[in-house]
């Protein structure tokens, strides 16, 4: 079966038929009724709603971070490690210079 031809034929069939533009009786009045029922959009009300919604997650995050700060064990001081690393780095150059020349060949 030639799928290309079949697809073209089917799409051509779909093109021939244009959907109906019929509007159900009284549709406009129904829409207008719905529009009157919908409250007008107030940008301040939208902001207030969004901020109120954001308040609860913010309080939650604040509480979690507060608890974490209080309960987490203090981090170990790494001063000794740094001094050791510095010493190693400085003496590494000196150690290299003391290597006998015949070993480097």
């Amino acid at each position, binding site marked *: *079966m030639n799928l290309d031809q079949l*697809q073209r034929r089917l799409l051509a069939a*779909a*093109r021939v*038929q244009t*959907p109906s533009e019929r509007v*159900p009786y009284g549709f406009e009045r129904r829409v207008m009724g719905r*529009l009157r029922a919908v409250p007008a959009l107030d940008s301040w009300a939208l902001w207030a709603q969004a901020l109120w919604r954001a308040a609860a997650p913010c309080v939650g995050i604040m509480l979690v971070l507060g608890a974490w700060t209080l309960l987490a064990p203090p981090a170990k001081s790494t001063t000794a490690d740094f001094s050791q690393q510095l010493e190693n780095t400085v003496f590494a150059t000196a150690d290299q210079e003391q290597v006998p020349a015949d070993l480097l060949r």
Partner: protein
Amino acid sequence: MERTEAELIGAVLQGDAASFEPLVERYSPRVFATARRYARRESEVEDIVQEVWLKAFQKLGSFRGDAPFEHWLMRLTVRTCFDFLRGHQRNRETTFSELSQPESDWLEHFVAEPEAAEADADAARQLVTRLLEQLPPAARLVITLLEIEERSVKEIAELTGWSVPLVKVRAFRARAQMRKALAKLSSEKYL
């Protein structure tokens, strides 16, 4: 004397909601025709059109008036239809046994004599609807706009809010997906 479109929009923006009714009357036929391409049941079509008008009323302030109101409304309609398709996504494959008698007859007729198969037969249209229902929302939208309504890529980009390259990529994928669905449907019977 009949008020112009700009006068009606201006009045609605100044708080006269009743001035919106003539706009609903004037453009509802086009909105209905568009919605009927994407929804099969009449109750779904009415829901889509009602949603379009609610959005149009609420967003009327964003209509700048540099393009006709109809273009702005059709963009809103196409986007609402796309939202509807995404909300009612059915990942269901049609099997040959599910086709109605006229549909399978039309397919058999096409296989026997491809040139003689009627192009405007109802069965062929039902088959297309069936195939389109199997496609993902973006693919269905792009096939409908590009292949059935014969709109240009640029027009589709304006209607959907997608970029031109994205429309091209989606059109390419959509055609492949449609071909795949068609191949699957026909292979059950003829391969």
